[in-house]
C-alpha cells in the first residue's frame, strides 16, 4: 500500500463504525454488481444475471464479516475495479471509442496548443538554473516613479561588487550587427553581455566556452553564438575557433550555447552574444551615446538581471536594495542622487528600462484565444455528451441490473464518471500529441514572418505546466460531457428497465424539440457558427490588411535597407556613401526617382518625438501648458528623408516644396521641416503653417536649439497599419538629422521591370562598396505583406480559421450522429408511417425538417453570439465591421449546407426503410 493510501485509511478508520459497515456493504454490492453486469454482457437475461451474481457472493452477512477482517482492498481496489471495467467497456465499442476520442482529442488538443503558446508567452520560465531566483533590476527616479533609466557600466560594476543582495549581477544590451555569410551581409540580433552572463543564468555552453572576465570590457573580438544561428551556419562543432565577420570586424568564435537558451528574453533568441566592450568598436551606440560608453558613469546603456543571494527574494528585496541605492548615491551623488533601485520579474516581452508593467494586452489576447479554444472543447463535449446519451439508452439494462443487485446511485455515477474520465485521458493524450504537432507547425510557419534577425525559439515539447493544464482540460471535459448523461442513467427506473426487452429506450418519452439531445445540437451549431464567423473575420482582416495602403500606391516600387553604420564607417563616410548610392540608382534606366528615408510607412519600425511651437520655454515646474501658443506639445511621428521623398512615394505636396539637395546633404543649412496636414492643424489651428517654426519639446533650458521652419505641408500617411488614419507627422532632411542606417526608396517608371531593376540596384550598391551591408532589397508590397503586423494577423487567421473548420467538422458530426441515432431509434415509427401512406419523400421531409429546424435554431443563436464576437474583433482586428458581410454570410451558408448534408444522409436512409421489415422489428 502506498503512503497515500495508508494515510487515507488512517483517516477513514477514525470515522464511526456505522459508516465503515455501510462502506463494506457498498463494496460488496460493487462486486456483485460488476459480476451481474458481466453476466448480462455474457448473454444472460437481466434476472438471471442478477440472480447468479447474488448467488456467487453468497450470504451477504457472512461476507460482510469477512470483509471487515481484511479491509485491505477498499477505495483503491474499487477505483481499480472501476477503471478495469471502464477499460473493458471502451474496448468493447471500438467504433464509439474511436470517434469519441478523436472528437475530444480535437477539443483538448486545441486548448493544449493554445495554452502552450500562452505558456511560452507568459508563464514558462526562461532556460536558466532556478529562474525563480533571478530578477530584473531597474533604476527608478524617486521624484517621478514612472521614470526609469538604464545603468552605466561603472554603476553596474559597483553594484556587482557588493554581493549582499545579489549573489551575482549580469548586464546586457541588445543591438543588431551585420554578419557576413558568403557574399551576403545579413543583420543578426546580438546581445552585448557581461562576462558572467552565462554563469549568472547558470547555463553552460554546449561547445566551447563563455566569456573570460578579461574579455568583458576589452576589445578582444570573441563571440558566442546561439543554437539556432549555429544550426543555420551548418551545426558543425568544429566551428569553435573559426572566425565570423561582424560589422567588418573579424571575431573568433569561442562558444556555442545549447538549444532553448534565449538569454534573458523568453520567446526569441539573439544570434550572437558579444562582450560589452565590443559595443564601441562595432559602433553599436545605445541611445546615441558617444564613444567609450563603458567608462562614463553617466552613459546609461545597460540592463541588469541579478541572482538573489540566499535569503533574499523579490518579496523582501526592497530594504536591501534601498541600502544599496543610498550607498551608490552617497559615493557618486552627481549621477545617482534622486534614483533608487527596484527589482521586478525579468521582462518577458520586449526590452525596456522599466519593469514590465502588467502584460495587459498580451493577457487579453491570451484570454481571448483560450476562450475561443474553450468553445471548441465545449463543442466536442456537447458532441460526446450526445453520444453518451445515445449509448446510455442502450446501456440502461446494464445499469438497471447493477441497481437491482444493490448498486447505489452514487456508485453508478462513479462508474460512469470513471469511464468518462478514462475516455478523456485517452483523448487528452491524443490531444497533447496533436497540440505538439500543431504548435510546431505554427512555429515553423510563423518563425520567418516575425523576425529576420532574431530566432523564434518556441519549443513545442509540453512542459509540466502544459501537461497539468491538459489534465485539467480532461477533468473539465469529463464533467461537461459525462456528468449529465451519467446523472440520467443513475436516475433510471429499475423496474421498468429490467423488464424492458426489445427496442432500446422504446419506453422513454418522445424526444421533443427541446429534448436534451436536441439542445446539445443547437448549442453545438451555435458555437460552431460563432467560431466560423470569428475565423472568417480574421481571414477577411488579413485580406484587407494586405490590400491596405498607407496613403499611396505600392506599385512595383522597392527599397534597399542600407546599414553603413554596421560596417563601422563614420558619419562623413556614411553620408558620402548614401549620396553616391542615391545618385547611382537614380541613374539606372527605369528608375523614376529615389530617396533616402529613415523609416517607411507600414514598416516594422517607426519613431516619434514630442514637438511644440518654436520659442516655447521648457517646462519649469512640471505643469503642462494649456495651449499650443504657450508651448503645449504633442507626440508626432518623425522621419528623416532625402530629396524627392514624396515624389518617390507618389504623394503630391499640399503646400510648399520638398527638401533641397543642400538641406539633405549639408549639415549646416538653415533648419527646415515638412509637416503633415494634421500636425499643421494642431500647432496652428486655422492658420497657414508655411513659414512657421517648430521645435522638439524642450525639456531643459540648456537643451540645444532645434527650431526649424516649415517649408512644406503633406497629406497624412498612415505609418502604422493598426494605428489611427491620421497621426501628426514631422519630416526632417537627412542633412540635419544623421542616421547610420537608412532605407533607399526607389520609384520604378511605368512599364519597367522591377525585378531586374532590383537586381541592377543590388549590383550598383556592391560596385559602390562591396562591404556595405544591404539588409534588405525588396518591393514595398512584399515588405508590407511580410510585416510583423500582417504576420500576426495571418497567424490569427490560421489559428482561428482552423478552429472554425474544426468546429464545423465537429458540428457536422454532431448533427449527423443525432439524426442517425434518431432514425435508427425511429425505424418502427417510420415503417408504420409508410404503411399508413407516407411516401419516401414524406419521410425524407420529416427527418430533414427536424434536423434543419435544429440547425436553424442553432444558427439563430450562433448569429447572436457571432455579433458579440464581432463587436470584440472590431476592436482589435484590422478594418473589420462588427457584422462583416463576408464572414456573416459565408459562415452560416457553409454551416447550413454542411448541416443539410449531415441531415440528408440519415434522412435518405430513413426514406429507404422497408415497412415490412420495420414493422417486424417490434
Amino acid at each position: 500500500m502506498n503512503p497515500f493510501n495508508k494515510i487515507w485509511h488512517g483517516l477513514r478508520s477514525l470515522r464511526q463504525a456505522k459508516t465503515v459497515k455501510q462502506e463494506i456493504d457498498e463494496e460488496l454490492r460493487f462486486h456483485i454488481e460488476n459480476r451481474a453486469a458481466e453476466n448480462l454482457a455474457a448473454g444472460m437475461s437481466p434476472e438471471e444475471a442478477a440472480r447468479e451474481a447474488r448467488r456467487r457472493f453468497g450470504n451477504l452477512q457472512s461476507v460482510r464479516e469477512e470483509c471487515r477482517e481484511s479491509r485491505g482492498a477498499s477505495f483503491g481496489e474499487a477505483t481499480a475495479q472501476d477503471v478495469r471495467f471502464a477499460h473493458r467497456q471502451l474496448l468493447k465499442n471500438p467504433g464509439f471509442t474511436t470517434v469519441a476520442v478523436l472528437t475530444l482529442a480535437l477539443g483538448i488538443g486545441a486548448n493544449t496548443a493554445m495554452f502552450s503558446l500562452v505558456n511560452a508567452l507568459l508563464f514558462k520560465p526562461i532556460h536558466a538554473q532556478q529562474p525563480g531566483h533571478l530578477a530584473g533590476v531597474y533604476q527608478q527616479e524617486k521624484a517621478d516613479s514612472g521614470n526609469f533609466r538604464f545603468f552605466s557600466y561603472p554603476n553596474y560594476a559597483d553594484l556587482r561588487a557588493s554581493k549582499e543582495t545579489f549573489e551575482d549581477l549580469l548586464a546586457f544590451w541588445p543591438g543588431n550587427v551585420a554578419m557576413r555569410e558568403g557574399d551576403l551581409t545579413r543583420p543578426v540580433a546580438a546581445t552585448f553581455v557581461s562576462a558572467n552572463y552565462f554563469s549568472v543564468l547558470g547555463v553552460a555552453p554546449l561547445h566551447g566556452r563563455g566569456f573570460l572576465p578579461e574579455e568583458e570590457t576589452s576589445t578582444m573580438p570573441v563571440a558566442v553564438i546561439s543554437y539556432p544561428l549555429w544550426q543555420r551556419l551548418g551545426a558543425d562543432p568544429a566551428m569553435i575557433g573559426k572566425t565570423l565577420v561582424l560589422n567588418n570586424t573579424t571575431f573568433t568564435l569561442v562558444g556555442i550555447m545549447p538549444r532553448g537558451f534565449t538569454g534573458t528574453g523568453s520567446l526569441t533568441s539573439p544570434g550572437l552574444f558579444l562582450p560589452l566592450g565590443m559595443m564601441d568598436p562595432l559602433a553599436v551606440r545605445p541611445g546615441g551615446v558617444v564613444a567609450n560608453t563603458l567608462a562614463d558613469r553617466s552613459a546609461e546603456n545597460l540592463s541588469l538581471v541579478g541572482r538573489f543571494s540566499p535569503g533574499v527574494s523579490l518579496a523582501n528585496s526592497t530594504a536591501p536594495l534601498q541600502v544599496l541605492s543610498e550607498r551608490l548615491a552617497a559615493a557618486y551623488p552627481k549621477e545617482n542622487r534622486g534614483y533608487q533601485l527596484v527589482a521586478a520579474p525579468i521582462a518577458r516581452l520586449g526590452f525596456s528600462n522599466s519593469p514590465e508593467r502588467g502584460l495587459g494586452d498580451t493577457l487579453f489576447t491570451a484570454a481571448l484565444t483560450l476562450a475561443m479554444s474553450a468553445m471548441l472543447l465545449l463543442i466536442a463535449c456537447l458532441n460526446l455528451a450526445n453520444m453518451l446519451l445515445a449509448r446510455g439508452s442502450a446501456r440502461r439494462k446494464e445499469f438497471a441490473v447493477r441497481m437491482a443487485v444493490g448498486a447505489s446511485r452514487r456508485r453508478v455515477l462513479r462508474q460512469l464518471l470513471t469511464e468518462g474520465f478514462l475516455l478523456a485521458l485517452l483523448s487528452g493524450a491524443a490531444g497533447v500529441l496533436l497540440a505538439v504537432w500543431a504548435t510546431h507547425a505554427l512555429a515553423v510557419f510563423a518563425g520567418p514572418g516575425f523576425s529576420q534577425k532574431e530566432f523564434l525559439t518556441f519549443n513545442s515539447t509540453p512542459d509540466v505546466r502544459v501537461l497539468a493544464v491538459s489534465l485539467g482540460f480532461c477533468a473539465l471535459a469529463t464533467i461537461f460531457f459525462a456528468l449529465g448523461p451519467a446523472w440520467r442513467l443513475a436516475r433510471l427506473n429499475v423496474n421498468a428497465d429490467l423488464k424492458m426487452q426489445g427496442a432500446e429506450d422504446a419506453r422513454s418519452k418522445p424526444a421533443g424539440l427541446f429534448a436534451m439531445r436536441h439542445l446539445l445540437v443547437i448549442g453545438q451549431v451555435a458555437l460552431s457558427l460563432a467560431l466560423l464567423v470569428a475565423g472568417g473575420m480574421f481571414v477577411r482582416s488579413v485580406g484587407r490588411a494586405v490590400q491596405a495602403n498607407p496613403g499611396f500606391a505600392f506599385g512595383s516600387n522597392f527599397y534597399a535597407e542600407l546599414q553603413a553604420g554596421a560596417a563601422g564607417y563614420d558619419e562623413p563616410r556614411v553620408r558620402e556613401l548614401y549620396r553616391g548610392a542615391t545618385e547611382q540608382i537614380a541613374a539606372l534606366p527605369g528608375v523614376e526617382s529615389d530617396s533616402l528615408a529613415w523609416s517607411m510607412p507600414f514598416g516594422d519600425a517607426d519613431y516619434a518625438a514630442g514637438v511644440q511651437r518654436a520659442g516655447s520655454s521648457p517646462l519649469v515646474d512640471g505643469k503642462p501648458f494649456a495651449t499650443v501658443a504657450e508651448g503645449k506639445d504633442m507626440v508626432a511621428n518623425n522621419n528623416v528623408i532625402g530629396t524627392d521623398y514624396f515624389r518617390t512615394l507618389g504623394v503630391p505636396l499640399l503646400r510648399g516644396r520638398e527638401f533641397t539637395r543642400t538641406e539633405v546633404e549639408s549639415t549646416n543649412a538653415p533648419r527646415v521641416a515638412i509637416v503633415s496636414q494634421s500636425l499643421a492643424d494642431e500647432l496652428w489651428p486655422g492658420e497657414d503653417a508655411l513659414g512657421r517654426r517648430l521645435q522638439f519639446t524642450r525639456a531643459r533650458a540648456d537643451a540645444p536649439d532645434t527650431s526649424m521652419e516649415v517649408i512644406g505641408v503633406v497629406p497624412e500617411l498612415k505609418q502604422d497599419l493598426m494605428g489611427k488614419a491620421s497621426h501628426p507627422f514631422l519630416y526632417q532632411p537627412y542633412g540635419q538629422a544623421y542616421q547610420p542606417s537608412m532605407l533607399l526608396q526607389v520609384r520604378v517608371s511605368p512599364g519597367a521591370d522591377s525585378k531586374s531593376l532590383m537586381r541592377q540596384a543590388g549590383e550598383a550598391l556592391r560596385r559602390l562598396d562591396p562591404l556595405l551591408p544591404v539588409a534588405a532589397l525588396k518591393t514595398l508590397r512584399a515588405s508590407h505583406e511580410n510585416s510583423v503586423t500582417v504576420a500576426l494577423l495571418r497567424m490569427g487567421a490560421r489559428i482561428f480559421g482552423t478552429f472554425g473548420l474544426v468546429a464545423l467538422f465537429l458540428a457536422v458530426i454532431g448533427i449527423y450522429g443525432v439524426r442517425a441515432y434518431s432514425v435508427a431509434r425511429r425505424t418502427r415509427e417510420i415503417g408504420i408511417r409508410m404503411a399508413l401512406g407516407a411516401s419516401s419523400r414524406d419521410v425524407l421531409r420529416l427527418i430533414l425538417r427536424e434536423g434543419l429546424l435544429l440547425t436553424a435554431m442553432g444558427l439563430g443563436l450562433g448569429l447572436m453570439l457571432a455579433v458579440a464576437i464581432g463587436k470584440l474583433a472590431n476592436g482589435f482586428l484590422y478594418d473589420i465591421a462588427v457584422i462583416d458581410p463576408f464572414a456573416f454570410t459565408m459562415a452560416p451558408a457553409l454551416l447550413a449546407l454542411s448541416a443539410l448534408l449531415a441531415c440528408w444522409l440519415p434522412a435518405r436512409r430513413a426514406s429507404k426503410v422497408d415497412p415490412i421489415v420495420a414493422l417486424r422489428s417490434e
Partner: protein
Amino acid sequence: MKPMMSTPPRTDIAQTNTEPMIQLRDLEKCYKTKAGFTYVLRQINLDINAGEFITIMGPSGAGKSTLLSILGMYDHTWEGEFLFLDHPVRRLGAKERALLNKHYVGFVFQQFHLLDDLTVAENLDIPLSYRDIRKSEREALVADVLDRFNIVGKKDLYPSQLSGGQQQLVAVARAIIAKPKLLLADEPTGNLHTDQGREIMELFKKLNQEGTTIIQVTHSETNATYGQRIVRLKDGWMEK
C-alpha cells in the same frame, strides 16, 4: 353514412365489375431460416371481387397474417401471381405498390402499431396527413371517427395510457378513417369485449354494404358469420 372522402380514381387502373379485384395464382411464400426454406403459404389461388366481405380463418401460425400483408402489398417477397385491379403486383416497384396501397387499402395490424409518441387523435390523423386533405377537413374527419368509436374522451391520451381493447379500437378507426376501398383487418376484435366486437362487425357490415371490400382474419366463428365467404388456411395451404 356519407362517403368521407373521395379518392380520385387513377385513369390507368381499369375497374370493371367483371374482373375480380384481387386474383392470386399459385402464390407461395417462404422464409429463409437457418434450417433452410420454411414455406408459410403454399399454392394459394384466390379471387376476391370488389364488394366482397371475406373471412380468413385458421390455427395460429397458419399464415393468415402473412397472406394479409401480401394482399396489403407490404410484403413483396413471394412467388406466383397477384393481380390487384389488373395490376401485376409482382412487377410493380416499391413506389407503385406504396401508391396502390395508399389509394385503396386500409389495414388493421394484429399488433395495432400505434405510434407511442402521438396522442389518439394524432394517430388517427396520420393516414389523412399523407393524403392531400385540408387541415380543417382532417380535423372534422378525426372528430367524426372519434365520435363513431366512442373514444372522444381519449383523444388526447397516449397509446400507453389506453387499455388493450381501446388501443385496438383506435387501430381499427385509423384503418378506416381514409375511407379505403379495401379494408384488411388482422384480428380486429381479438382484444375486445363481445359487445364491442359486435359493434365493430356491424360497422364492417355497414362499410361493406356501402361498397368497401373487406378481408378480415379472425378466430371467432361468430365474427366469421358477418362475411360472405370463409377462406380456411392450415400450414400455409388453403383448405378447399
